[in-house]
């Protein structure tokens, strides 16, 4: 589609199909399943951030009568499987909380006690806890076999720098030579966690006859199956993974942590095994998002024309090379700007922290934070309105991105204009208050999605999708099926299929599900319409081409006659069997979503405490299938980004131990901390989607970092650069300045 369409069901605010179950506590999350004979698994974790494992003695734990099974790295059947050293450490632990051994016992408490019976002999090594330390000449090297990838010349010595990226367009030196004003600044962001409310958990049952089962909380149950089957050397057909209701993921539930361990314990014990991380474990051993050190330099003419943009980005990977989102960070940093001369150099660095995981628009919040902060400073320097400066240099259809492709139709201009025209932007600030504006860009992706629509005898339909519903996709799928079949939304229910009853689907991530799985639903629904027409034609003894499907009914265009879906499906056995539509696709045509956010923040000069007094999130959705869910995504992304900007950070001791692994000390924003986040849905349709949809889940977390960072800086009159801008840091900046 290329222009706005009239829709009957899309765009409505229908009742959430999962709402009642969730608010009444009836929804079944990962920890809610128990099986007969089930025992509990627990993991022994390293107390050290960096140490050699000399010996693990499990004999006392194995002798415990309450213990059914004990395992270490050596018990994983496929010792060459990808990611195995994060599941259980082999000969070295790389972070505080690294899994070392596991037990399964009669109860959770018994398993916990048995962990204390396992003896591990460590040789403690000096930990490397940040980019500065990791790249210093006297730093310990985490991996003797790690040589920096992507260097112009082959490195001769191992390094903590895992890789180097580089992107460019135009002539960066010529661009800066043209500039009349140049701003450059370095920024730092802390290690952060996705902060999902539901901890990682699973219940598994190993079956000798080839019917093993995993019930777990995941963004991608097909990926859980692939990883676990590979580690256990079993065929995928012998393992069924069922995605439970999920209590948040934000990228952090794309990885696999517990499931292979639980299945080995189940195999060894002959019992079903349940495992659940506690909150400490979630913070220590899952996630986090990369800490970064980023430098940005931007040059412009005095009329606001930006002539050059340059960045040097350094991203922590945690301990595992290749785990940072450095590539997307480099590709997104300058994309909101149509500037001829751009250059970015990126480095990934390994440190003694948990392996980094994807976190909502992975890589983009940190790099775009640095860019947007400098853009705002440049606007001040030029005496220009920051929105006018952005509009003067705005990326639009046809803009050549630094990472390669030219942009198709996008909605950044519309978002900036909506921000400029918003009530918040026209409202005067009070004493000790500051305002920040920032843009954000995320690619969005397509990928593989599988859907089946099974039509029931009463003419209703059950949509079976392969994408775990993390943000309301079941409602969107119902609405898209209803639109295509021209039947009421209530005629459809949507469920998440197991790995054994649907073909492969990519995980829910990358803002792909409403776009890609939605396309699969449309294809499946079109398949159903085709079959309904065939059956009506058979009933009337005419050809399918002589049947028109309209308003959810089949019309005989060669005579009189109308059949409802209920009538056709009710007699389907007489016309060829029951009706089921399929959509198995590799979706193309994902299109980016841009956003612009406004933050008004008040700072208490005596304490450094920040209060977000007003916040507006504006973003291009292409077409909002269910506007309430879209607004919820905008608000959720904003809230996470505000937390990242103002409070959230991992705090480590000098010996590398995580000191704040809990929500009391790792402070995410609560509803009571924030104002009602105002939203504006911009709709510039994506011409590649039948209904114009763009992914919208991720972009919303990008602008808050710089919007809040600029608001705080403006409130106190001091340029701040390091996140989080927490009260102690703000107070110190105020005191230092005075």
């Amino acid at each position, binding site marked *: 589609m290329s222009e706005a369409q009239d829709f009957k069901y899309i765009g409505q605010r229908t009742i959430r199909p999962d709402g009642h179950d969730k608010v009444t506590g009836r929804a079944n999350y990962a920890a809610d399943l128990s099986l007969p004979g089930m025992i509990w698994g627990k993991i022994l974790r390293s107390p050290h951030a960096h140490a050699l494992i000399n010996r693990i003695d499990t004999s006392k734990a194995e002798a415990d009568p309450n213990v059914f099974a004990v395992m270490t790295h050596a018990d994983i059947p496929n010792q060459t499987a990808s990611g195995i050293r994060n599941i259980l450490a082999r000969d070295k632990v790389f972070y505080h909380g690294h899994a070392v051994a596991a037990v399964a016992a009669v109860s959770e408490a018994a398993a916990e006690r048995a962990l204390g019976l396992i003896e591990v002999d460590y040789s403690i090594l000096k930990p490397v806890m940040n980019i500065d330390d990791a790249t210093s000449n006297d730093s310990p090297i985490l991996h003797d076999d790690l040589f920096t*990838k*992507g260097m*112009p010349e082959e490195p001769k010595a191992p390094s903590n720098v895992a890789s*180097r*990226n*580089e*992107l460019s367009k135009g002539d960066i030196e010529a661009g800066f030579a043209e500039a009349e004003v140049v701003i450059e600044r370095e920024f730092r962001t802390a290690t952060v966690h*996705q902060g999902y409310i539901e901890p990682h958990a699973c219940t598994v049952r190993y079956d000798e006859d080839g019917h093993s089962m995993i019930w777990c909380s995941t963004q991608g149950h097909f990926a859980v199956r692939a990883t676990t089957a590979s580690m256990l050397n079993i065929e995928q057909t012998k393992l069924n993974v069922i995605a439970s209701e999920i209590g948040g993921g*934000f*990228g*952090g539930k*794309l990885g696999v942590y517990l499931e292979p361990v639980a299945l080995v314990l189940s195999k060894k014990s002959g019992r079903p095994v349940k495992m659940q991380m506690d909150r400490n474990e979630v913070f220590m051993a899952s996630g986090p998002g990369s800490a970064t050190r980023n430098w940005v330099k931007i040059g412009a003419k005095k009329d606001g024309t930006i002539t050059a943009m340059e960045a040097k980005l350094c991203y922590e990977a945690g301990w595992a090379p290749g785990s940072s*989102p*450095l*590539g*997307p960070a*480099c*590709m997104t940093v300058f994309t909101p700007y149509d500037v001829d001369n751009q250059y970015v150099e990126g480095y990934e660095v390994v440190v003694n922290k948990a392996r980094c995981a*994807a*976190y*909502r*628009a*992975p890589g983009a919040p940190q790099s775009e934070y640095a860019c947007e902060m400098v853009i705002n400073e440049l606007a001040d320097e030029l005496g220009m309105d920051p929105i006018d400066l952005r509009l003067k240099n705005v990326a639009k259809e046809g803009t050549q991105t630094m*990472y*390669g*492709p*030219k*942009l*198709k139709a996008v909605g950044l201009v519309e978002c900036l204009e909506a921000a400029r025209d918003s009530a918040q932007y026209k409202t005067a600030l009070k004493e000790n208050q500051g305002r920040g504006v920032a843009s954000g860009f995320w*690619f*969005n*992706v*397509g*990928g*593989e999605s599988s859907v089946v629509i099974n039509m029931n005898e009463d003419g209703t339909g059950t949509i079976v999708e392969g994408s775990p519903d993390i943000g309301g996709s079941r409602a969107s799928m119902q609405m898209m099926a209803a639109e295509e079949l021209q039947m009421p939304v209530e005629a459809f229910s949507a469920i998440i299929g197991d790995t054994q009853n649907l073909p492969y689907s*990519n995980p829910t*991530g*990358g*803002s*792909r599900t409403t776009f890609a799985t939605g396309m699969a639903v449309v294809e499946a629904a079109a398949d159903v319409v085709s079959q309904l027409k065939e059956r009506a034609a058979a009933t009337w003894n005419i050809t399918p081409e002589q049947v028109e499907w309209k308003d959810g009914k089949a019309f005989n265009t060669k005579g009189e006659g109308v059949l409802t879906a209920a009538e056709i499906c009710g007699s389907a056995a007489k016309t060829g069997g029951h009706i089921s539509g399929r959509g198995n696709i*590799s*979706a*193309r*045509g*994902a299109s980016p979503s841009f956003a612009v956010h406004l933050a008004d923040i008040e700072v208490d000069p005596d304490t450094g405490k920040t209060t977000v007094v007003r916040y507006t999130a504006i973003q291009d959705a292409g077409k909002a299938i269910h506007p309430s869910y879209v607004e919820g995504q905008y608000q959720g992304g904003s809230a996470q980004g505000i937390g990242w900007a103002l409070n959230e950070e991992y705090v480590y001791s000098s010996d590398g131990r995580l000191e704040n692994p809990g929500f009391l000390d790792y402070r995410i924003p609560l509803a009571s901390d924030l104002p009602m986040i105002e939203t504006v849905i911009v709709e510039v349709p994506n011409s*590649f989607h039948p209904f114009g949809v763009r992914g919208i889940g*991720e972009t919303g977390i990008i602008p808050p970092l710089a919007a809040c960072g600029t608001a705080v800086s403006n409130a106190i009159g001091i340029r701040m650069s390091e996140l989080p801008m927490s009260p102690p840091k703000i107070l110190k900046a105020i005191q230092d300045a005075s």
Partner: protein
Amino acid sequence: MRLDHCYSMTAHVIFSSELQKFTGVREATVQAEDYRSLVIEITDRYEGLSAADIEDMSVAINGEIIVEPMLEKIDHGSEVHFLYRIEGG
């Protein structure tokens, strides 16, 4: 007709910095009917560049990022960009 046929298969390929260490160039002109034959052509042309190296990258053809491009047709003047892998959260 034959000349037209060959002419219609010329693509403009832009390599990421990661692949440039194999190719030594940022851009190249490649004749190929589809993405699969394009990969064969460039892995033949540049010593040390393997199909596995390319599989680690994302691909955009004429501005569209395509997850599974193997069977994509290459039209005359197509722009093929190899990008850093994009993964969402």
